[in-house]
Structure formats: structure tokens, C-alpha cells
């Protein structure tokens, strides 16, 4: 099931780590964004709600919005939380609350942006795209091109676009991606959406925008306004998947010594260590032809490629959240599901393991930043988890006669 536009927009904005979010909506939208948004960091609570109620349906939500705006602007320190994002949900949009008028009345001290995020206007991906586009207006207002900054011409700088702060294993994945890119003289200027407000405002200082699945509209406007090229890449799962990811980025960069194929191969191969895999090679042979299904967002395709190309597994079903995949999976030979926490229902139905890899994950936590799923080290961690979920299965065949 798709999370809908409101969640997509929320995720784009909540990834600005020192932004605060005002959910102008009934209580349920605030509760939902809170529990999913903080599932990997239970203390990261930076939102509140205008608590729209029946009386607001009748009389409008402008008064309660005003009170909440004042309260949020006053209570959160502007230095620590310089940005206020006002998300307008379905109800105020339908009843026609004059949100801009109220905001003009209040004179907010912080930088702010108003984003209409009506759930009925699209899916989560559209919400993410629209959210970033609206956030871009802050860049056009506040960006100050650092013309005099001396740049090391041997180092390329990129913005990584498409992830969210509440993604499963996000910190570990980013650490691994940064580590690998650093080996190829590439620095990450900003990760969207997992950055501070000042890092976000500094995005035009990058050499390239790297888009992973979502955030294309933001990349396009950056190309138009700041002449920054962009490249679309798959999420870097697996040794080969990561290789493709790095290669695609380098192909778009100037002055990168690893544009030379031989230099690149030599370097990349030096980073890969197959020794740990050897210790479980007998088990890994057993993974060949094992039928699996992958459910997810834009990451599903990359995961399927890794499982088939690098582990030899048979891919039964690859589906996106918005699709009706349940019947397909149930009528397949799937023995392991890769998905979100919500695929636990399917894995229970089939009594098979679930590997959680994509949003939303609310029944597992990822605390260590040394256990990624992305990148070269991520491939090893994934193999470990896949093998363990298979090996730790126990059960006896009981004759049913």
C-alpha cells in the first residue's frame, strides 16, 4: 500500500534535521507521521499539530493554526531550529483555510515554507518530489554562491538525493556510501533528505546531483537555475550494484582520475574482500535458485538485481507498494520476502522469513552505523542476514495423514 502524498512530503522535509514540522491536520496525521518518522530514533520529535477537530470543520482551522504557529515559533529556539515547515493536510485544504493569510499575520521569526500535501493529490513519490520543490524556494531566497572559496580541483562534490531520515539503516548506509566515494575522490556535499538546514541551503555548491529513485524535479530545477548536471542511479546494493553506482557518478564528473577504466577497476577491486564470504561459501551455494520476492519503493529493483545477479536467487515477484502484489506472492514459490515491516503479514501467511530493508521499518531498529545494507560492506551484511534468517528456521515435518 502506498503511503500517500502527505507522508512523502513529510519525509522530504523531516530529513532536514533541525527543521520543525507543523502538521495542519487532524490528530491522526500527526500521530502517523510521528510514529513512522521516529521509528529509528525515538527521541527525534520535532513536530506538532494544530489538532483540527469537528469545530474546525465548521468554523475553519485558522485560529488553531495561528495558536500553533505562535507556540512553535516561540518555543523552539530559532538558532537551533531555524526552519519551520507548515504541512497543510486534506481537511484544511478542502475547507479552504487561508493558511498564507494566517502566516502573514503571525510574523514568524524562523525561515518557513508552506507546503500543500493533500493525500488525495498523489502518491508518496509525488509528495517527496513536491516537498523538495517547495523546499527549493528556500535555496533561491537564501543561497549565497561562494565564489571566493578555494576548491580542491582533485575532489568532486556531489549531492545525494532520494533518501529519508527514517529509512532503515540510513546512517550505516550513508557512512558506507561516503567511505566508498571518498576512495574515488568524491565528497558528499549534502544528503537529501538527511542534512541540516545550512547543508541544504548549500546544495548549489556541488558539482553534480545524484538522484536515487526520487527527487528528480529538484535536480531538474537545480540544473536549470544553477547549471548543475544530475545523474539517475540505482540504490547501491551488492558489490556489482555499488560498482555500477560509483561508475555512473564518475561518468558525469570532470577531472576525476577514475574516469580511466583501468584505474577504476584497480581501485574498486582493491576495496573488495571476498575472504569473509569464503567462510560461508557452502551455505551460499545453497542460495542459488532459491525463489524470493521483493516488495518496496524505488529500492526494490536494485535489491532484486543484487539477489539475482550476485547471489543467483530466483526472483518470483518484484512489486512496488502501490501495486496489488499479495495474490502474486501467495501464488508464487517464494521462500523469503524482502520488504518493509508491513510484509510481515505476508511472511506470516506463508511462514517464511522476512528481510526488512525498506521504509517503513517499525519492528526492527538499526543502531550501529557499521552494519549497512548498502555498498560493499552492505553486501556482506545482507548475505549474513539472509543466511541467518534461513539457518535459524526450525521446524519439524509433521505427517498430516
Amino acid at each position, binding site marked *: *500500500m*502506498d*503511503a*500517500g*502524498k*502527505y*507522508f512523502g512530503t513529510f519525509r522530504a522535509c523531516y530529513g532536514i534535521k533541525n527543521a520543525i514540522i507543523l502538521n495542519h491536520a*487532524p*490528530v*491522526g*496525521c*500527526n*500521530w*502517523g507521521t*510521528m*510514529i*513512522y518518522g521516529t521509528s529509528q530514533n*525515538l*527521541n*527525534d*520529535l*520535532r*513536530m*506538532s*499539530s*494544530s*489538532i*483540527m*477537530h*469537528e*469545530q*474546525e*470543520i465548521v468554523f475553519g482551522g485558522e485560529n*488553531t493554526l495561528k*495558536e*500553533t504557529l505562535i*507556540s*512553535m515559533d516561540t*518555543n*523552539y*529556539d530559532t538558532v*537551533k*531550529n531555524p526552519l519551520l515547515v507548515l504541512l497543510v493536510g*486534506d*481537511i484544511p485544504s*478542502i*475547507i479552504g483555510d487561508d493558511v498564507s493569510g494566517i502566516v502573514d499575520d503571525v510574523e514568524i521569526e524562523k525561515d518557513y515554507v508552506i507546503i500543500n500535501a*493533500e*493525500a*488525495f*493529490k498523489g502518491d508518496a513519490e509525488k509528495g517527496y518530489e513536491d516537498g523538495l520543490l517547495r523546499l527549493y524556494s528556500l535555496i533561491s531566497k537564501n543561497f549565497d554562491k561562494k565564489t571566493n572559496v578555494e576548491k580542491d580541483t582533485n575532489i568532486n562534490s556531489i549531492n545525494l538525493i532520494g533518501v529519508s531520515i527514517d529509512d532503515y539503516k540510513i546512517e550505516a548506509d550513508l557512512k558506507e556510501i561516503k567511505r566508498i566515494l571518498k576512495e574515488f575522490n568524491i565528497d558528499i556535499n549534502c544528503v537529501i533528505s538527511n542534512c541540516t538546514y545550512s547543508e541544504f541551503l548549500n546544495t548549489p555548491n556541488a558539482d553534480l546531483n545524484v538522484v536515487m529513485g526520487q527527487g528528480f524535479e529538484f535536480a531538474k530545477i537545480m540544473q536549470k537555475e544553477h547549471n548543475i548536471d544530475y545523474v539517475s542511479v540505482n540504490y547501491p546494493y551488492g558489490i556489482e550494484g555499488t560498482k555500477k553506482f560509483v561508475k555512473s557518478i564518475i561518468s558525469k564528473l570532470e577531472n576525476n582520475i577514475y574516469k580511466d577504466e583501468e584505474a577504476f577497476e584497480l581501485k574498486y577491486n582493491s576495496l573488495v574482500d571476498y575472504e569473509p564470504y569464503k567462510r560461508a561459501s557452502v551455505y551460499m551455494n545453497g542460495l542459488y535458485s532459491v525463489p524470493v520476492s521483493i516488495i518496496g519503493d524505488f529500492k526494490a529493483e536494485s535489491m532484486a538485481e543484487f539477489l539475482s545477479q550476485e547471489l543467483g536467487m530466483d526472483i518470483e515477484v518484484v512489486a512496488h507498494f*502501490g501495486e496489488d502484489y499479495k495474490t502474486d506472492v501467495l501464488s508464487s514459490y517464494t521462500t523469503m520476502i524482502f520488504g518493509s*515491516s*508491513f510484509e*510481515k*503479514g*505476508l511472511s*506470516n501467511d506463508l511462514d517464511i522469513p522476512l528481510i526488512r530493508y525498506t521504509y517503513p521499518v*517499525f*519492528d526492527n531498529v538499526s543502531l550501529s552505523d557499521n552494519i549497512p545494507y548498502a555498498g560493499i560492506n552492505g553486501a556482506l551484511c545482507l548475505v549474513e542476514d539472509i543466511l541467518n534468517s534461513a539457518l535459524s528456521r526450525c521446524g519439524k515435518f509433521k505427517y498430516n495423514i
Partner: protein
Amino acid sequence: MKKDNLNDETTKNRIKKDILSYTLRDHLFNGIRQHSNWQYHKYGINCKLSGALNTAVELENSKVIVHGCSHCAFNQRLSPRTMYDPAYDVECTNMTEKDVIYGGEEKLRAKIIEVYEKYHPKIITVLPSCIPGLIMDDITGVIATLNDEDILKDCKLVYVSSEGFSHRAKNAFERVMKDYTKAWKNPKDVPNYEIRGCGKQEALYSFFKQLYTLKEYNNDKNNDKFDSSKVVNIESIGLQGFVNKLEVENISKILKRASIDVNLIPANLEHCKNASSADLNVVMGNIRWAERMKQEFGIKYVKKWFYHYGIEGTEQFFNEIFEEIGLEEEELINAKQIVKEEKEKAVDKLKDYSEFLGKYKYAVYTSGFFTTPYILKIYLEDYGLPIKYVLLDTKSLKNLNISDETIDETVESIQKLFDEWNYDIKIVLNPEIEELNDVAENVDYILGDRHLPYIENIPIINLHLVSSFLYRSSFDLLTEFSKYMVRKIKIKQNSKYQVDNSKLIISNFDYDKVHYPLLDEEVPRNSMKIWREIWAIKSE
């Protein structure tokens, strides 16, 4: 003493079903999630759709359709009531902008038919989100038309008013607290109240209103669905947590021993049909559904209140059921005797535990409020604990938006009750670490729940894993609680693994002085403050 043969299947099953083992296992798998749920409630509340949805999915052989955007169905599958058991399988009409403009009725009709043809459920529950509520989709009209057309053979359609903007008023708990405080003195005066917001009550009421009809009532009243002459319905879904369900199981067992048949409702359509031929309803939560059945079918009800806790309270609860159900004189005597025997067995068991527990002096820390004096009464009278202090944490009341004035009245009422019951107990309000240390000087143990900080070496016996046992009308759960308490104290006294709390990983964090376990961080504290501020000005 004969040792168990651990290879024996019967022994294995007994161990699996042992109340404490089962509860502690369940806490590990499920209960840890509730900690985050309590924490989240400081920053917001869920909406009615969430509680309604997670109650509706408990109906057997049924499907749930959320009429709204996928956003709501996606979001509300995870409810605070059942964080450990999300509603994985929910259908949605996926309303778009076009539906907002032109109405979503056709889409709902098509979805109902699609779900029926795909799954052939016995019940389909339709749950509207805010949008159809606002644009006034005629959901009951869609359902009536489908019923008239007789398209859905042998499938009942239920509509629950679950629009998220219709949550409870900010002063709801203020009223409830005031009412309860009065009722502590005269328990029978406790008023019925309705708390909107969670959605469970709306769902239950709709099931009873729409799944029972007079026609079925007339047809079923004279059939022989049950073995015995008397039947009770017991509310059995939407009960938060596993201990509630254990209690229903316990109650059912005793009633069956008294030759009374039990119909757990509204578990499935069959049970709903049988319900109208019952002689009595047993209400575990809100009485609205039972009131309706009383009007519709003339079925009386007994509701479990706080004065049905504890040994005496549990006996009283069963006796009320026996008296209301209309047993013949001999049957009544027999039934009461069965409960009396159960009670005596429990009292005997408690004697052994109390002998040990009575050797020490205690302070009891509590943050639950609506039933506080009656819970303390169990400690004092059923378990015979010498309690010197009661440490009252009123912060949870503040979170519920209860005024300082009402909190003062509540504390005063508790003190008066102690005086009336002739207990010399000192009340300490919202003790901080230093005060806890002072109290610890004068007692052997502080009995606590989940809100007590573990960060100092105070002799705390943490009972939060089983604290919900005390809120039950069940002899078994009362004795198991006592058994657990004894075990915890003995471990504290004898284990070679004595915990030094200062070495705990969680002792390395700075906590908010008032709102443990909230960390001492400005941003979440501000979020909590804002939520309370805005919640407080609502409905004024």
C-alpha cells in the same frame, strides 16, 4: 517433591500455558513496544480510525475497507492499541482528487463488491476517514442499496463512524477523574461515560447495532444453540493486551463450572447471531453496546468496574452475574459456592506469600489514577503489605489535561480514604530522586511500575510486567501477581547477580527531571510542551 518429566507433552503444554510464563513471554514479544506508545502519547494522540480499524480486524472471517486515501489506510494499520500486531491486511478505496470533487460513493460500492468477490468474507466493515466524512459521502446509502440488491449473499456490511476529526474533547478526562474521585466513596455511583477518540467504542457499538436484528432475535430466541439453560455474552475483542484476554478466559472458565454457557462476542458472525438469545451481557469496557441490547432485546448486563478488583471484588463480580442472570435458587447457591471455593483456594495461596511479604516495609509508587485507592487496597488487604508511603506520580494526569484543582481534589480523596480505612500511610507527590532516596531509608522496598527511574541504587521492585494483573476480576491473576512479587524480592535478596544501576547503559543518559524516561533534550521537551499547550486551548 516429584520432579516434572520435561519430556512429557502434557508438562510442556502446562509450562507453555503457565500464566506468568505466558505473560512474561508475551511482554518480551509485544509489551516492549508499549513503552514507546506511552512515550508517544506525550506528543499526540491517534485518531478514531486507528482504534476502529484495529478492533474491526479482530472479527473472524471479515475484511476491512478504509474509505479514504491510501495515506490513512497505510498509516492506521499501526495502532497504539496493538503496536505489536499491526493490521497487515486492509483494503482501501484510494480516494483521489476527482473523488473528493465528485464523491467517492461509486468507488466504495465497487470496492465492496470487489472485496466480496475476492474473499467471500462473512462481514465487511467500512471505515470512513476524514475526507468522506467531510464531503458527506452517503455510506449508509451505498450499504443499503447493496443490501437491497442482495448482491452480497451471506455477507453482512457494517459501517463505523470513524472520521478522524471527531476525537475526544480536551476536558474529557477532567470529567472522568472528577466522577471517579466521587465514586471511590460510593462505588455504585460510578457514572457511565464515553471517551471518543480511540475508535474502539464506536466500532463495538456499530457491530452490535448492525449485526443484530430483531428478526434474528426472534429466530434465535427459541433455538437450542447452547447446552445449558443460561448463557452470557462476554465482550471479547478490542481488549488491549493479552492480560485482558487472560481475564476473559478466567471468567469464562468459572462461569462454565457454574453451568453457564459463554458466548464470546462479537468474535464472528455466528457469535453475533447467538448473542441475542443470551440471558446476560458482561461488559469489559464501555456499556453503550450493552445498553442498546437491553433496549432491543431486554438483555440485562453486568459491567466490570474498579470495585470488582481484588479477592472480595472478584467474588462480588461473579455473584452479581449469578444474581442478574436469573438462576433458580438452588443453582444460585451452587454457583456462589463454586466461586467461594475458588476464592478460598486463592486466599490459601495468598497466605503463604503474605507471610513472607509481611516481614518487610514498603512504599508503593503509582501513576495510574482512576482506580488507585482500590489497587492499593489489594496490596493492603489481599497481600497484607505494611505500606508506609504511597508515591503518587501526577504527571500522567497532567498529560491527560486534568487541572491542578482536580488533581488536588483527587489526592485529598485518596488521603481521606486511607484515614477511613485506618491506614497510616504518608502520600508523597511526584518524588524526585532525592526524595526517593529519603523514602528508601525508611522502607525495605519500593514497589514500582514502568515510570520509576532505574538510574539510582534505590531498592525498587519493578512490577510493571505484571501490574495489569491487579486490574482484573480473576483469582488466578491475583495470586500469580503475589507469587511474582515474592520471587522478585527473593531474587533481590539472594541472587549473585545484583544489579548496580549506575553501571547500566541507560544510566549514562541525562533524563528530564520531571518526565522520566524523557531525555534531557530541549527539542522533544518543547514538542511535548507545544502539544499540551494546543491541546489545552482546544474546545474552550
